[in-house]
């Protein structure tokens, strides 16, 4: 299978008047066609910045300081805005968390969708564009697409708007879809509908998906690979079953233990003590050191490198150093 996306040692920093914040710190991953990779992490872990870096949409004050993003073998870091515009929206597209703020309230759904077709397929006639829009709205499960296309965003419900966003992002047959918390603003029954839709998209169009979320339940239902991020770093990455059943990093353990589960009775919740450290303060050791119950002396002194903990299973924790022995 072809690697559609290859991210190598990507670092994105924000430069504030208080100093540099390493929002994304040397993350690497590859993504094949039709594969779903989930980036999991708490707020401030850098998962959104990572996706924005791939889209070339890092906010002012932020900059990609290191690394490569190979999309179809071509490095997109440092591309001119004009060139990036050709890729963005047609080959890589994005769905955001809050569909209301992403849709323009003063244009109809149809005219907003038409915009990206006009930009990327200049040879299309008006009738062709219209047909394509209606087909796409129909595909994402919107009833009466003809009428809906003439409506304004405020006339639709939250779930419906998210469907429109998905339809819009798929119009130009993108090879990569980045979904940034696509279901967080939705109710569970609607969330189930959207997850189902995303699964169909993956199968039908063979689109690669980067799913950014904090919900480990959503990840379990759709992802092939998972990366767990903490303070800008990927602390663990593995195939989805391995991550849930043979997770290695203490932070991943903590996340899984902190979740209440409907399928298990009386699982006592074990919160992770403390809160995420201030990213402005540079510290030498592991970022998770202060909250980790397995912390050792070396964890305070040096940042752990990436260790292989099995096939395609990477962990950033000193416990997986070849010389590590469990103290009893």
């Amino acid at each position, binding site marked *: 299978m072809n690697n559609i996306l290859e991210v190598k040692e990507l670092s994105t920093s924000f430069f504030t008047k208080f100093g540099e914040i390493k929002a994304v710190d040397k993350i690497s991953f590859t993504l094949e066609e039709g594969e779903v990779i989930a980036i999991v992490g708490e707020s401030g872990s850098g998962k959104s910045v990572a996706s924005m870096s791939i889209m070339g949409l890092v906010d002012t004050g932020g900059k990609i300081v290191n690394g490569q993003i190979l999309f179809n073998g071509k490095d997109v870091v440092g591309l001119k805005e004009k060139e990036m515009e050709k890729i963005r929206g047609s080959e890589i597209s994005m769905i955001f968390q809050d569909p209301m703020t992403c849709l323009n309230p003063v244009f109809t759904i149809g005219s907003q969708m038409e915009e990206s077709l006009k930009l990327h397929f200049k040879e299309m006639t008006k009738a062709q564009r219209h047909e394509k829009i209606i087909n796409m709205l129909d595909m994402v499960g919107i009833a009466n697409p003809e009428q809906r296309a003439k409506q304004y965003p405020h006339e639709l*419900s939250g779930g419906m708007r998210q469907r429109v966003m998905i339809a819009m992002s798929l119009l130009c047959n993108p090879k990569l879809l980045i979904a940034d918390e696509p279901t967080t603003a939705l109710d569970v029954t609607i969330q189930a509908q959207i997850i189902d839709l995303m699964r169909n998209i993956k199968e039908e169009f063979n689109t690669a998906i980067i799913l950014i979320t904090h919900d480990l339940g959503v990840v379990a239902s759709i992802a092939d690979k998972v990366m767990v991020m903490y303070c800008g770093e990927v602390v663990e990455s593995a195939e989805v*079953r391995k991550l849930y059943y043979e997770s290695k990093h203490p932070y991943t353990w903590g996340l899984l233990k902190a979740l*209440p*589960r*409907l399928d298990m009775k009386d699982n006592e919740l074990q919160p992770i003590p403390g*809160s995420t450290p201030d990213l402005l303060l540079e510290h030498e050791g592991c970022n998770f050191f202060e909250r980790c119950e397995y912390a050792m002396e070396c964890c305070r002194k040096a940042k752990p490198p990436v260790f292989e903990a099995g096939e395609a299973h990477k962990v950033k924790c000193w416990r997986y150093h070849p010389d590590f022995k469990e103290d009893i």
Partner: protein
Amino acid sequence: MNTILSVKNLKKYFPIKREGKFFGVKHDVLKAVDDVSFDIYEGETLGLVGESGCGKTTLGRTIMRLYDPTGGKIIFKGDDITELDQKQLHPYRKDMHMIFQDPYASLNPRMTVSEIIMESMINDTALSASQRKEKVLELLDLVGLNSDHATRFPHEFSGGQRQRVGIARSLAANPKFIVCDEPISALDVSIQAQVVNLLKDLQKRLGLTYLFIAHDLSMVQYISDRVGVMYLGRMVELASSEELYKSPLHPYTTALMSAVPVPDPDKERQKRRIIVEGEVPSPINPPSGCAFNTRCPRATDKCRGVAPSFTEVTPNHFVACHLFDNEKKEEKIQ
């Protein structure tokens, strides 16, 4: 078990003005809470779940008498507080308190933590200034903060810490009953567990009673003794949390349960998910009959015409659904 709060046929309607088609104003009613009845027992946690717009927050606020109910009765510790005016409510305010969803918006940014907490004690004239200060420190300790935090302002805290301050404030007047309105929704997963465990711990130590409102079914199931499920202003099912998970009766509850993704890839992929079609209808013109009939896979003509009553099908398991009408009748004969 003693009943601490009893809600009977509670209704809260909001009038809505809309422009008429040609002239004048059209008056509509939004039935946010429609005919809800339940009891809360002393020392228990009653969870309240439902999707956004189902009226769970309005119900919580109406019980607190932050809204004036349109109909029905609220009986707190044996006294009917439905008709009392705000002044007459004063003695009851001490016993019931609230924790809000957004720890960023519910704390006054211009007050220090100790001022925020002390404000709840203003009415307690028996306490001297120094006793109050002492109590603030006690409360901070109770919720896992320390005395250094007392002089700080809310912006200096993280979300989880702010929610702890909110909890300390609600405990300041020694309440018996606390309405927790989505207390953890704005927090990160690892912090959610901290706050929920703190609430559980406080309940054990202080003998509190909670009405825990949330949309996260798995969290509600974890913290609650009994769970009520709401849909479009009505309560559709009420049972112990174990029972509700093991044998949900109402088709809406079943769908809601199956829609919650479980953090277990194998289970999640084998699971046959019941996907309810469509969206929640508008509460301004709710469907006739059972409110869920537009999305229910098992709806019949009866469901479209007649609203089901909220009745006890098996002991302590209440449901409002026509599917269980027969079982109800059989029980009556017995």
